[in-house]
């Protein structure tokens, strides 16, 4: 037995469920398919970001991101746009995870063609995990320097889920009209309820910024232009939602401060992380709960103006260097 994941998301209508009347097999099948779709459809871990990092010939850089992954994923798809930093063809070696992944050889030319030609790397996971963790990819320029323009990472969609207590795939046939209704594992109505209670429908990756192994020591605003943020709506009356964020940074001495700055219709919100370590490490994940969430009554989901996000960097007594900042949804 296994749970088929439909390509098109089922949309069982509430009008198909009438109080006082039995719920039909067709409705249960649609609900089971929706449960499978929710677990099988991959999430975007790293929305497209723009490192614009130059890698010299015969050197490499690791691009780090922090997210809470989803337990249903078995593969991650990394996609990068790389162009040669000169007219010399760049020969690349790519691997994810950066320290232990299987190497993929790729080539990058220069110019606009390289900006429109993705390099796709599929990372097979050793185990399924829903933990907050670093995910990373390493790009090495064997010959010819290169520029990494853009990176993204998403969980590969699954066409089928296993019928076990990790995947919670529901056997759709067991919900068909005429089949017995019972509370079994991964079957019938009990399987649908288990799929609901174990669903993980997070909008995982919100924003990521990375400079690879490069050392960004500038203070002041991180981004040249603040970026929009809107998080998912959870409860019926929710108007805001929370995100977590963390920075991969160090200081040479003293204390560095990285401040998340969030501007919305209600004003400006800040949340600061302190950096005191002299070796690179992720700061403890911090939670910010002031972001607007989708307003499902409006055409575009915007409850008003756009919420905008930027980061401010400051340091006292040394030099602060930041390699990555990640913002993700945790629950």
């Amino acid at each position: 037995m296994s749970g088929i994941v439909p390509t098109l998301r089922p949309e069982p209508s509430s009008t198909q469920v009438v109080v006082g009347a039995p719920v039909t097999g067709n409705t249960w099948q649609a609900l089971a398919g929706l449960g499978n779709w929710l677990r099988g459809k991959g999430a975007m871990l790293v929305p497209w970001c723009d490192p614009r990092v130059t890698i010299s010939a015969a050197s490499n850089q690791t691009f780090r991101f922090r997210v809470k992954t989803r337990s249903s994923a078995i593969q991650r798809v990394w996609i990068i746009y790389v162009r040669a930093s000169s007219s010399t063809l760049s020969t690349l070696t790519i691997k994810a995870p950066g320290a232990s992944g299987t190497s993929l050889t790729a080539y990058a030319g220069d110019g606009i063609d390289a900006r429109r030609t993705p390099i796709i790397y599929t990372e097979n996971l050793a185990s399924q995990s829903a933990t907050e963790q670093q995910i990373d990819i390493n790009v090495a320029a064997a010959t010819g320097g290169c520029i990494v323009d853009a990176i993204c990472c998403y969980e590969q969609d699954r066409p089928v889920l296993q019928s076990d207590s990790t995947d919670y795939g529901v056997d759709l046939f067991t919900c068909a009209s005429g089949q017995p209704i019972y509370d079994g594992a991964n079957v019938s109505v009990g399987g649908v309820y288990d799929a609901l209670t174990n669903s993980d429908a997070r909008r995982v990756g919100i924003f990521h910024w990375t400079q690879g192994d490069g050392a960004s020591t500038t203070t002041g605003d991180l981004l040249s232009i603040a970026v929009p943020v809107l998080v998912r709506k959870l409860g019926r009356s929710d108007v805001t939602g929370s995100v977590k964020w963390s920075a991969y940074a160090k200081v040479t001495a003293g204390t560095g401060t990285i401040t998340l700055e969030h501007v919305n219709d209600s004003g400006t919100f800040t949340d600061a992380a302190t950096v005191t370590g002299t070796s690179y490490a992720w700061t403890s994940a911090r939670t910010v709960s002031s972001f607007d969430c989708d307003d499902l009554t409006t055409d575009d989901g915007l409850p008003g103006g756009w919420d905008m996000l930027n980061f401010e960097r400051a340091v006292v007594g040394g030099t602060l260097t930041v390699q990555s900042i990640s913002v993700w949804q945790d629950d």
Partner: protein
Amino acid sequence: MSTSVHQGRLLTGRTWDAQAAVDASFVRDVVQNNLCHFADEFAQVRVCFGNATFAPETPIEYDVWKPIASFGPFPLALRQSGDGYNLRIRVAGVNGDNGTASGKLRVVVCPAAEADGLVNIEEDFVFETQTLTTTITKTWLTGTSQGTAASTTLVTIPGSLAAGWLTTTGTLDDIAGNAVGVEQCLVYANVYSYATASDDTDTPGISLVGLYLAEYIGA
């Protein structure tokens, strides 16, 4: 539109009772509502950046859509109708020509191989920004989808197109499992720049400096 009854997760305090008959109100308010709401809001952020500058290559050509960059592919979520989830869009640009030339940007959400052929058409998966003239600071631009919806914040992909863009991608059925295929609608955000007035400076025209693209089920 939102497909859940209550447009939000409903916590009733009621739990599954394996020994009792299935209660239709429980199915509607908890199982159907919550599954549909979770799926409505399982709308992913696909693109979000605002740091690097993506400029058209020189020499600048005028009165043509010139490709700047592509961001993709990513597997668009598809609704039961076959339509893609809407994509909320925002585009930031800069006029690198110190105001002596004017221009605009277009984002075409489609497979990369089809983008050059679709950039000129007037459909709602094509989003065009305002025309920049003297702006020289990086800024988020206003814009409009080019179809009948003329949305200022959304691009939409109808099922008739999404069906043609479906492709099968190789994957596994489990950890270290067997090879299988998964059907996906893989699209890119293809960005183009358009310069509308010539000058002699031969400097980059309208550049992309930020892009935001996130799925949304719709009102």
